[in-house]
Every structure is written in structure tokens, then in C-alpha cells.
């Protein structure tokens, strides 16, 4: 076997392994909350995640992949010795894999994106010389790492504020949800359709037809959601509507007897009995109005149930966004190796679709072999994130990541969703937040990038020793 063949196989194996890793660990960010709120069963969540991750990777993954393939390190510099470039990209993949294993062993919140970018920049600057790195792109990527959690936080904050004002603060949260739900569904569908048609070159499809098609899809979704939510009522209502007037009379006489009993009481007992009488008043009132208001508010529970359905759509969007951004971490360097070896022009024309398909498959297999466990664990433990909160966090996060994908910026999904959850927390949606995670993430930035770079250089010389 020639060296080239070995390198080819090595590139595919390492790229596939990186994709497997992404599927195994990161997909939980998108689906965990929906499983936790019981809007989705684990099996359905895994199937949906697989479909949308794959779609995101194949339909929208090429921008970021191109950035990693040829946007950071200029392959032209290595034209004299393509093997240097091949070894470097292989070293970057290997370094990322090693660093991620080490970090997850130590429990550090590191990001695949940060380590692969660190590794590529490291090998480029040291092996190829400082001038071989596109520092402009690197600076833009660095800025996008700061901006993405902030934008995620901002978007989720605004979304949850919107839900607060227009749902929770309304006299009837359920009716308000019915009004607002179709538009939120429409928003999700619009974003999803816009981003999945963004790069697909249909025959003769101009930008206008794509936008038109997406708007039409969103409109259909709005109408469908409108008719679906119109049918929903508080389940108890139906039973109570056929209220017997004799029942009301009985309740009234019971109240009279309690009022008699109250005369002989004082203090705590007086307070409690008075409370019971008030409850009975409320109950009788509710019977008349066909609505229960005693104790826990069943309306809020139903609102959350509705948001549970909405959250499924935002989780799918999140899986799509994640696939579109993170598949590049595995496939970008792999494609760089392959195109250098096969002497196809690098960075020109479209990104090879089969590489994206391979990456998508890797993510799905990672999800099927290990990822479902992580989704299960995350789902069981995130009880703080009710569907309305989860929807706000996921939609805000997905918008940010899709924006980054369209500009070709590799950003960290984990950091963005952490930003988004904090955004919901700032809008008083979560009882308490632990800001230690933010500190850990900031610290890990300062460790991951140099660690990725140094490991990549070490791996480069190791590979150079072998071949």
C-alpha cells in the first residue's frame, strides 16, 4: 500500500471518528430538553435528531466545512510539498480527538470547534509559517466565538420576554398561547426552510423563489397550527359544562353550614375554615364559568403542554443547525486531505457532497451507538427547563448558529446553548442559575486553543516520523 492510500484511509477513519464523537456527545444539546419535558419519547427524539442532523450537515454544512478546509490555512503555500499539508490536517484531526478524550476524562467543558480551529491554526503557523494562516479569518472566527453566546442569550431573552408578555401575563394564558403559537411555528418553519434551501441549487431556482417557497411553507404551517390549536380546550371544561343546578345548591348549603361552624372558631382554625369557604366560593364561581381555579392552575399546565409540541419543532431546528455547523469539525480537515491527495483543486467550486454525507452518517452512527444515552441522561436531569423555557432557549440558539453557518463561522453549539439558557434565566424563567459553568467555559477557551495547537504540532512530527 502506498503512503497516499494510507493517508486516505487514515483521513476517512479520523474524520469519521470525529463525526461519531460529535453525534455521541453533542446532539443531546438539541434533544435533551424535549425528552426531559416528555414532549418526545427517547426513540422518536433519536429518529428526529438523526434526520435533522443529517439534513443540516448535507444541505447547509458546506460553508463552515470550506472555512476549515481552506479558509484558515492557505493550501497554496504547501503546493511544493502537499504531504506537509496532508500531515498537518491529519495531525489536527488526531490532536482534536486526543484533546477531547482527555478533556471529557477530566470533565472540562471544551468545545470541538475550538480545539480543531486551534489545531489547524497551530500547525499552519508553526509548520507552514505565520504567513500561511489567514489571520483575518481567524480573527473573525474568534469574534464569532464571543458573539455567538451573547447573541444566543439576547435572542432567547427576547423570545422568552415575548412569551412572558403575551402568554403568561395575559388574563387567559391558554387563549393567548393559541393566538401566538401558529406564528411561532411559522417562524420555526420559515427559518428551517430558508436555511435548507439556501445552498441547494434547484434548476433555475433564484433567491426569490426560495424565499417565496419558504414563506409559502411557513404560511401552511401557520394555518395548520391555527386549526390544530383552535380545537384544544381545557379538558375539564367539557365535563363541567353540563353542571347540574342542584349541585350548585348543594355547594351553597355546604358553604352555609361551614359559615355556621366558623362562628365558634378563632385563630388558625378560623383562618383555615375561612380559606376553605373562599375556595368553595371560587369553586362555585368556576363551575358557573366552566373553569377550575382552585389550587394549581391547570391552565398553566396546558400551556406548557402546548409549548411541548412547539418545542419539538425548535429541537428539530436545533438539530439542523447543529448538523450544519459541527459536521465541518470532522469533515473540513478530512476533505482537505483528500482533495490534496487526489490533486483536485482545493477550495474551488462546491464542497464535495459525498464528504458531507459521510460526516452526516458518522453523526447518525454516533447518535445511535452512544448519543441516545447522553440524551437520556440530559433529559432526566433537566427538569428546570419547562417547554416554554426550552423553546425560547433552543430557538434563540438555533437562529444564532444558523446565522454563523451561513457566514461560514465555526461556532460552539454548547457555548451558544449555555448563553441561550442564561438569557432565559435573565428573563426570570429559571429559579436559579449556576454561573460557575460560564467561568469554566471562559477558562477552557484559554486552555483549549493552545492545547489544540501544541498537540497538533506534536502529532505532525509523529506522523512525519511514520510516513
Amino acid at each position, binding site marked *: 500500500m502506498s503512503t497516499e492510500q494510507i493517508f486516505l484511509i487514515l483521513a476517512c477513519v479520523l474524520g469519521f471518528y470525529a463525526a461519531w464523537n460529535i453525534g455521541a*456527545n453533542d446532539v*443531546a444539546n438539541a434533544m435533551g430538553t424535549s425528552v426531559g419535558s416528555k414532549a418526545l419519547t427517547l426513540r422518536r427524539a433519536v429518529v428526529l435528531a438523526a434526520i435533522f442532523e443529517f439534513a443540516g450537515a448535507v444541505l447547509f454544512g458546506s460553508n463552515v466545512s470550506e472555512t476549515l478546509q481552506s479558509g484558515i490555512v492557505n493550501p497554496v503555500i504547501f503546493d511544493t510539498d502537499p504531504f506537509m499539508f496532508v500531515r498537518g490536517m491529519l495531525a489536527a484531526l488526531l490532536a482534536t480527538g486526543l484533546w477531547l478524550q482527555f478533556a471529557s476524562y477530566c470533565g472540562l467543558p471544551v468545545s470541538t470547534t475550538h480545539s480543531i480551529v486551534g489545531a489547524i491554526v497551530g500547525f499552519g503557523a508553526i509548520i507552514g509559517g505565520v504567513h500561511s494562516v489567514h489571520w483575518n479569518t481567524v480573527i473573525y472566527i474568534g469574534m464569532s466565538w464571543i458573539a455567538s453566546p451573547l447573541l444566543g442569550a439576547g435572542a432567547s431573552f427576547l423570545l422568552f420576554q415575548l412569551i412572558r408578555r403575551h402568554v403568561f401575563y395575559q388574563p387567559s*394564558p391558554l387563549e393567548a398561547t393559541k393566538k401566538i403559537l401558529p406564528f411561532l411555528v411559522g417562524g420555526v418553519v420559515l427559518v428551517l426552510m430558508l436555511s435548507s434551501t439556501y445552498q441547494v441549487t434547484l434548476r433555475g431556482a433564484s433567491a426569490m423563489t426560495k424565499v417565496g417557497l419558504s414563506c409559502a411553507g411557513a404560511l401552511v404551517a401557520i394555518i395548520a397550527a391555527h386549526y390544530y390549536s383552535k380545537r384544544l380546550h381545557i379538558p375539564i371544561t367539557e365535563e363541567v359544562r353540563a353542571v347540574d343546578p342542584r349541585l350548585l345548591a348543594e355547594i351553597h348549603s355546604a358553604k352555609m353550614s361551614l359559615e355556621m361552624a366558623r362562628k365558634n372558631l378563632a385563630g388558625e382554625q378560623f383562618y383555615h375554615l375561612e380559606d376553605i369557604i373562599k375556595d368553595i366560593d371560587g369553586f362555585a364561581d368556576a363551575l358557573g364559568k366552566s373553569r377550575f381555579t382552585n389550587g394549581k*392552575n391547570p391552565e398553566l399546565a396546558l400551556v406548557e403542554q402546548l409549548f411541548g409540541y412547539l418545542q419539538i419543532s425548535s429541537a428539530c431546528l436545533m438539530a439542523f443547525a447543529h448538523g450544519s455547523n459541527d459536521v465541518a469539525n470532522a469533515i473540513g480537515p478530512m476533505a482537505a486531505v483528500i482533495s490534496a491527495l487526489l490533486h483536485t483543486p482545493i477550495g474551488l467550486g462546491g464542497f464535495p457532497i459525498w464528504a458531507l454525507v459521510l460526516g452526516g452518517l458518522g453523526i447518525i452512527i454516533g447518535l445511535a451507538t452512544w448519543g441516545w444515552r447522553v440524551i437520556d441522561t440530559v433529559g432526566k436531569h433537566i427538569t428546570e427547563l419547562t417547554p416554554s423555557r426550552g423553546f425560547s432557549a433552543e430557538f434563540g440558539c438555533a437562529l444564532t448558529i444558523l446565522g454563523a453557518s451561513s457566514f461560514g463561522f465555526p461556532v460552539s453549539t454548547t457555548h451558544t446553548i449555555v448563553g441561550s*439558557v*442564561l438569557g432565559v434565566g435573565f*428573563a426570570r424563567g429559571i429559579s*436559579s442559575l*449556576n454561573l460557575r459553568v460560564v467561568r469554566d467555559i471562559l477558562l477552557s477557551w484559554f486552555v483549549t486553543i493552545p492545547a489544540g495547537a501544541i498537540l497538533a504540532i506534536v502529532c505532525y512530527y509523529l506522523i512525519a516520523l511514520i510516513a
Partner: protein
Amino acid sequence: MLHILNLFGRSPFAPLQGHMEKVVDCVNELEPLFLLLKQKDYTLLNEKAEKISALEHAADLTKNDIRNHLPGSLFLSIDRGNFLEMLSLQDSLADRAEDLGILLSMRKMEFLPAFEPIFFQFLHKNIEAFHGVKKIIYALGELLESSFGGAEAEKVKAMVEDVAFREHEADVLQAELLKAFFTAENQISFGTFYQWEKIFKTVGALSNISEKLANCVRMTLDIK
């Protein structure tokens, strides 16, 4: 990535409600305590006072536990200072219950017919105010669900107003109680007079603190 799981701090409301339950245990012993005084059963009264003291200690332990586990990095959905004030007000309610036990067991006292009935009315009104604020604290979970606004918040606001009204009623009763008490001032020694005065103040503090606590919760609401 499991890091997202570490993002959530422990909800502070459940422990606060747990502390409230212990405070309720203390305050619930007050009526039996004064009934024992009425029956002049001083041995049982001393036992009751010790029991309240033990209950107050249990509440103190919970309170310290909450304070120890509310780290500085916790980002709460309500103001941290406000939360700690709620906790300390709950604590002072338990303290007042303990104080009353101690005041009654210090020396043998007895009710005078001149003010006994109105004293019990006064005590009951204070306990009612306390149970009103107890319900408010128990509603904090529902408030979080609706993120401190809307119909839930309106409901809690009405409950706060109810507690404030009971506190006012307690104040009116206290004035009447003092009037009745002064009619009997010649029948009692200075020491007894001073002791009763202190007991009245401590009982009256129950509704005052309850009102403050209710207003603390009121401050967390997102309604004007």
C-alpha cells in the same frame, strides 16, 4: 455534553418552603401554650416552652443549611438580598414563638378576667396573619411557573393585601387590649405589668413580621 446540566442551581424555593414548615410547627404551638397558662398548668407549660425551643432550633438548622448552600455564584430569579430577607423574617417568626415560650415560663403568671378574652382574640388575629403569609410562601413555585407576572401574581398580590389587612385588625385589637389591660393596672405588680407588656409586643410582632414577609414576596412580582 453534560455541561448544560451544571448550569442549573438548586431551586431555592423548596428549601425556603421547608423552613416555613418548621416555622409553622413553632407557631402552631402558641395557642396550646396560652391555653395552658389559662388553665394554670405550669409544669405542662414549661414542657411546651421547651418543645417550642427545640422546634425553633430545628428551624434554625434548616435556615443555616439554606444560607450555607446559597453560593455567591447563584443567579436567582428573585433578588438575592430579598430572598435572604425572606429567610431571616421567617426565622424571626420562629424566634418570636420561642420568646413567648420563654416569657411565659420565666415566672408564674396568670390571666386577669379584664383582658383575657380580648387577648385571645388578639392572639388569633396574629396567627391568622401568619397563616396568610404561609400560603404566600407556598405559592412561590406557581409564581415561578408564570415568571412572576400575570394572573398568578395578581392572586398573590391579593393575598398580600389580605395579610396587611389582618395586621391592621391585629393593631386595632392591640389598642383595645391595652385599654382593657390598663383598667386592671392597680391589681398587678410592676413586674407582672412589665412582663405582660412584653408578651403583647411579642405577639403583635407576629403579624408585623408576617406583613413584612408578605411585602417581601410582593417586591418580587412583575406587576405595578
